[in-house]
């Protein structure tokens, strides 16, 4: 990165908001996917849309690739820097601009945390629905980039269902407004396209979201089962009864033990636990909750624990939401995937994952959104043992092929990022990817905006991009492709 470019950055944001000392850059080498690291040439910390615009224009002129970054909690390497490129860290764009309770809209800058939006409106009885596990620290800008979900998206949908409008800086530095406080912008839904585009189309600088009225009642239960199939059967029965819970989560014994060690949620020592939460009008919740309790009992639940207080509920959720980080208590390293399968095929895919666990010798914890088939296998490994890191990646890729084979997806909420771009051909044909690329070039003809993400490239994925590699388990004859 040449001196003139750095000077240009300093003129825009001041000396203190441009980082290029190697020591200062360390923080920005990776996001929540810590095994992928790149050092950016510099990091810039804008404080306004005008700053972002000037920075992006400078990048466009100098042909410097840039990556927008929120709070770095992403799990797919979406904020992985480009070697020699610039990181635009949006943490200083953290103002709440407008809270409109009467119209149930809030406008914020991208560096505001997800939970801060709820904090702003909670005194009025409102909340912001998407609740990724990292909601205390993740930025709403990152949520927009990744189309984040969370435990409650079975009923309430994802970020894309809650964002009404954005202001964004296009890769040539022009500002564009998509959607807004009013719904139904005429024409193709460019906003819906932008949400979830993983920072590859534009840098979002303002976001208007809708907020929801707190439901009248929330009821949460935790049921323990001896087998994952029994728990899965309960979920099928709940959905089959026409009930759409606010959340349906499952954890297996390894995940339960890890959570217990980390945050002591007082989970039962079981093979599988199921967390079901219903919310809504009191009459509805109490009627349906009784049905859910009954279903769990009929499916052989060994215990059914109903949260009696808000504190009790919070403790259950603390255990669930801590599950990823808690893996650190039972394994030196872990790698989390988030493939999706049609919910009805969960038992079959989980059986395949079990077989893979035995064949690979790596422990795999399972935490998943059972209502929508979104798996979060946590693959435990020890990077100090030669070959284990690579093996963990292989196991993860194998699990993704199971998901795609079952008619599912590579990712339910974490994004493709740099992590899974090489697997995209498993899910999309070259024609599918070519059309997406064409759309990308409409926004970013020079491919400067977060390049190297989503799309497989020969440089990163080898000459023949593709997911299929024979797994050691297949070579050993203990697993086969169905």
């Amino acid at each position: 990165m040449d001196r003139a470019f750095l000077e240009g950055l300093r003129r825009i944001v001041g000396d203190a908001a441009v980082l290029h000392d190697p020591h200062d850059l360390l923080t920005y080498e990776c996001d929540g996917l810590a095994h992928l690291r790149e050092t950016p040439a510099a990091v810039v910390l804008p404080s306004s849309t005008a700053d972002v615009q000037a920075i992006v224009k400078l990048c466009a002129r100098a042909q410097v690739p840039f990556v927008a970054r929120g709070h770095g909690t992403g799990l797919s390497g979406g904020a992985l820097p480009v070697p020699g490129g610039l990181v635009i860290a949006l943490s200083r764009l953290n103002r709440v601009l407008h809270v409109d309770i009467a119209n149930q809209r809030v406008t914020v800058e991208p560096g505001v945390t997800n939970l801060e939006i709820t904090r702003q409106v909670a005194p009025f009885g409102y909340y912001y629905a998407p609740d990724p596990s990292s909601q205390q620290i993740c930025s709403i800008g990152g949520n927009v980039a990744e189309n984040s979900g969370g435990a409650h998206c079975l009923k309430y949908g994802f970020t894309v269902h809650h964002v009404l409008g954005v202001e964004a800086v296009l890769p040539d530095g022009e500002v564009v407004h998509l959607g807004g406080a009013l719904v139904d912008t005429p024409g193709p839904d460019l906003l819906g396209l932008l949400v979830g585009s993983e920072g590859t189309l534009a840098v979002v600088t303002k976001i208007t979201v809708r907020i929801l009225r707190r439901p009248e009642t929330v009821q949460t239960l935790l049921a323990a089962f001896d087998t994952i199939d029994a728990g899965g059967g309960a979920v099928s029965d709940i959905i089959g009864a026409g009930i759409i819970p606010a959340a349906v989560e499952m954890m297996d014994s390894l995940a339960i033990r890890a959570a217990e060690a980390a945050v002591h949620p007082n989970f039962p020592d079981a093979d599988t636990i199921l967390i079901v939460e219903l919310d809504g009008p009191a009459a509805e919740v109490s009627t349906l909750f009784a049905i859910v309790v009954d279903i769990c009992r009929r499916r052989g639940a060994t215990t059914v624990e109903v949260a009696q207080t808000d504190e009790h509920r919070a403790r259950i959720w603390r255990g669930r939401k801590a599950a990823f980080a808690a893996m650190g208590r039972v394994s030196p390293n872990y790698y989390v995937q988030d493939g999706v399968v049609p919910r009805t095929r969960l038992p079959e895919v989980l059986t395949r994952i079990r077989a893979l666990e035995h064949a690979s010798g790596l422990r795999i914890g399972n935490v998943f959104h059972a209502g929508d088939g979104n798996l979060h296998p946590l693959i435990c490994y020890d990077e100090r043992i030669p070959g284990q890191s690579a093996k963990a990646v292989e196991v993860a890729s194998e699990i993704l092929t199971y998901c795609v084979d079952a008619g599912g997806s590579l990712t339910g909420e974490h994004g493709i990022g740099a992590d899974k771009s090489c697997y995209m051909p498993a899910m999309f044909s070259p024609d599918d990817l070519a059309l997406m690329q064409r759309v990308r070039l409409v926004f970013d003809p020079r491919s400067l905006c977060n390049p190297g993400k989503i799309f497989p490239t020969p440089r990163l994925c080898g000459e023949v991009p593709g997911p299929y590699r024979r797994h050691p388990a297949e070579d050993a004859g203990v697993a086969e492709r169905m």
Partner: protein
Amino acid sequence: MQTTADTPATDIVQPSTPGEVAAAMKRASDEGRSMVIRGAGTKMGWGRPAARIDVMLDMRRLNRVLTHAHGDLTATVEAGATLRDVNDTLSRLGQGLPIDPAFADEATIGGILATNDSGPLRHRYGAPRDLILGVHLATTDGVLTKAGGQVVKNVAGYDLSKLIAGSFGSLAAIVSATFKLFPIPEASKTMRVAVADEASLTQVVRRMMGSQLEPMAFEVDVRSRSTQNPQSKNVSASAAASAFNVLLRFASLPVVVDAQVAGATEALKGIATSIDVVEGYAERMLWRAQATRLWDGAGAIVRASWLPASIAAVLSELPAGAELIGRAAIGAGLVRLDGDEAEQARVIGQLRHSPHVGNVVVLRGSAALKALVDVWGPQGDRQRLLSAMKLAFDPNGVLNAGRGPL
């Protein structure tokens, strides 16, 4: 129902496989022949008047429900299937695709998605763009592609199913689409809440938005007295020209519906001049009449959006005789305008300048009106992206005969 803009020279192509759709797209593009994609044709009159149409791509032979994965609450359907047929199939297993757009009995899935059209059910379930999970498209280069997926949760790749929602057939042909489904509620009741004037209407909207009641539909309905039943009485001076109603539909288990109706009745005590509760056949007839009322009347119909708590300000922009039906808590709906074209154009201009109203699009209007006003309205700083998107998908500019929005 609108008349089509067919001219005698228009070729009609009726593909029955995705491959035939793609081939027709490529042929039209290669030969530079103007092509319009149609389903049932219910919205053919929307948008700008069509220029010459060389080819009409009629999707109605692609009309199957390809899969109904009821345990997964998803279905994949072909674009030419009517919403009604799809829901007939899904309802056999107690599920449905909860969309109620204009002309819901005839409209096809492809047309509904291409226009992203919705109705009262949007309050609970969202618009088609909120329910779609994945899409198969045929582009003008003759290629079949897909985006999204068949599972309810998926963020792999760009979600082109959103891009296609609202594209009005200007970018690509929709071949099939996968949607998220919902169980059909066991019971339903609708409250018709009459109020005296704009101020009371606003009060009802604000109070219900702030309540913890969870209606399935929540509509504002402003009708001209001239189209009212002549037997209506007790017309207050402040509402001489219009009648103001709010419709609240509750659907769930029977006990829940009754509790919600009771809760809403209590909450609206003192504001409403009358509250009727209907169910069963009468309820179905009420919603049927709501769906068609504006379209059955004369005049122009425009789509508009507003800040929901500012509904009174919206109504203050409308002349006597105008009617409005919309989603109370979302702030979106239809306005029917009487008068001659010059008057309609004046009101449209006024709405577009109002700080409380936006995204005003003329759906139905005479050729004279559509010559007087910009049908789609200004696209602002989005225009550059939209033009580039059009060029990327339809480089020869053959799709949609200038009807817009692209």
